[in-house]
């Protein structure tokens, strides 16, 4: 129990590190918002007088000592006030909320798919160890796992979308369309999501495959597997009924732990497919230098990855009492 508390303390510490980093980054940068305002885009020059600068500095609380600014920032954060986007003229939390569901859908679907498919191929591979199927699957999946998802996505987009015309080129749903029913709407969303999900699944698959294959190889060499064979049980029943149940534990925890990596992959893949999620929002915010929005997205991503890691940590302890 004390280990769990220790673990949670570590996560809280990491979270504070992240928000502190988030606070200090813009303040360490050379220049301040007013030099940016004064010379925007080169041709339009807005010059602020010293009195105006002082007024805005006190309006935004930038003339307070750093300590007070920091406390103010933490206080706002915990009341759910991350800030107001300069470019979109909207509350940062609301903008992120509008986009988050797309990214969460992509990430969750591709994680679950790659977990399931990877485990099935991995178990079959362990069962047929050394045969052609094993070797082919190993080469194919491990090879794909070395390719970053956005490159796979680019190939899929241009071959499947632009060349063959089977899939839409961009977006998450067909714009300006009235859908006659929920089913056709869902079908359209799925149609748009197939290629991005496929790109991410192909990249993640190798990881789950290797994990479940090695875990299955260990399980298959155990005595209770020989017992199951001796009882004359059918092969599928031995493989999926007895062995898989034991081999799946590391796969489940890896599902949660790989969330950070797959988030990074999703940021890139969304930009390849112009998918309306957090990743594209992040790039748009970077392009228009909307620092408040960038920081808000960063906090959102960090917080969700941290909480998933914490859940994974607790789950491992619950499922396997040997890890204390």
């Amino acid at each position, binding site marked *: 129990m004390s280990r769990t508390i220790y673990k949670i303390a570590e996560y809280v510490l990491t979270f504070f590190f992240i928000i502190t980093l988030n606070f200090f980054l813009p303040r360490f940068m050379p220049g301040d918002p007013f030099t940016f305002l004064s010379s925007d885009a080169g041709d339009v020059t807005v010059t602020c007088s010293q009195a105006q600068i002082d007024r805005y500095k006190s309006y935004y609380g930038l003339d307070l000592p750093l300590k007070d600014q920091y406390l103010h920032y933490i206080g706002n954060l915990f009341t759910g006030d991350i800030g107001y986007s300069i470019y979109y003229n909207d509350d940062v939390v609301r903008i992120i909320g509008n986009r988050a569901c797309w990214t969460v859908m992509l990430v969750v679907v591709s994680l679950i798919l790659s977990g399931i498919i990877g485990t099935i191929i991995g178990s079959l591979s362990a069962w047929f160890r050394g045969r052609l199927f094993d070797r082919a699957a190993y080469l194919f999946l491990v090879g794909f796992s070395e390719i970053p998802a956005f490159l796979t996505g680019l190939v899929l987009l241009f071959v499947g979308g*632009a060349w063959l015309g089977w899939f839409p080129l961009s977006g998450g749903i067909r714009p300006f369309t009235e859908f006659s029913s929920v089913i056709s709407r869902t079908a359209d969303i799925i149609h748009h999501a197939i290629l991005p999900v496929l790109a991410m699944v192909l990249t993640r698959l190798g990881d789950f495959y290797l994990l479940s294959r090695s875990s299955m190889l260990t399980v298959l060499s155990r005595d209770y597997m020989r017992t199951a064979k001796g009882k004359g049980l059918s092969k599928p029943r031995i493989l999926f009924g007895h062995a898989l149940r034991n081999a799946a534990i590391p796969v489940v925890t890896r599902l949660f732990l790989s969330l950070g990596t797959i*988030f990074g992959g999703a940021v890139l893949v969304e930009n390849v497919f112009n998918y309306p999620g957090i990743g594209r929002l992040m790039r748009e915010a970077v392009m228009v230098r909307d620092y408040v929005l960038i920081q808000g997205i960063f906090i959102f991503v*960090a917080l969700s990855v941290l909480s998933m890691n914490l859940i994974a940590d607790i789950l491992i302890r619950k499922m396997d009492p040997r890890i204390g």
Partner: protein
Amino acid sequence: MNAARISLAIILLVTAAGIFSQWVAVHPHNLPSGNALEAPSPNHWLGTDDLGIDLWAQICHGAGVSVLVGVSAALLAGIGGSLIGMLAGYLGGIADRITMRMTDMMIILPDLPTMIVLGAFFGPGLINIILVLALFSWTGTARIIRSRILSMKQEQYIAAAQSYGAGFVHLAKTHFIPGVLPIALASIIRLTGRAIVAEASLSFLGLGDPTSKSWGLILNHAINFKGIYFMDCWKWWIMSPLVAILILVGAFAILARENETSAVSAFQK
């Protein structure tokens, strides 16, 4: 072992193409030398982009940028991480605990979003990219080296050397560095491949150095070109930098894998 040699040869070839890009490619990499969007021909081996700039020249020039960024970020992270790992393992106690908690935190942090934020705030530029990449990849090396040092500290020859009054610098020079060199080398090879991918990702998002055109930046320009989906030009404009990244990253991945297997089998003998 054969696969390792072939991939090493590929890496050296790409590096050479990057260093001698002015002579490998006939056309300049920053000036138009033909019509816009020409298909590959004997004159323009990989065709041209929307400004009529030869793509083969751009790929050769970009090879230099990719290898430079990848190798320097990996060297920085590998050497820095090894030093930190050695110190943490040698000193133990509070210093060790603090470093390990720091690596824990860095591992949990989602690296690409953090790199985007850092890149956005510190501005584009090769040095900044190298620093950000190094900052995010030293942890793994530090952990491996630390655990190796911990097991080395149990050996009797270390205790003997210490009893003669050997300090950290002497121990590091005569025992630690030769002992961890194979592991450090293996992780530097791994890191190089990952740094090349990370650089390509950042510049694909438009966060790279706009003045040094890397492969990711060529992809960024191509995908932002209006009409790229409806013309044939993607077949050379998108595919050539993409295949270039794949070849280089694949070569590094195979080299790392072969290196690790040979290290493990040498260890088991």
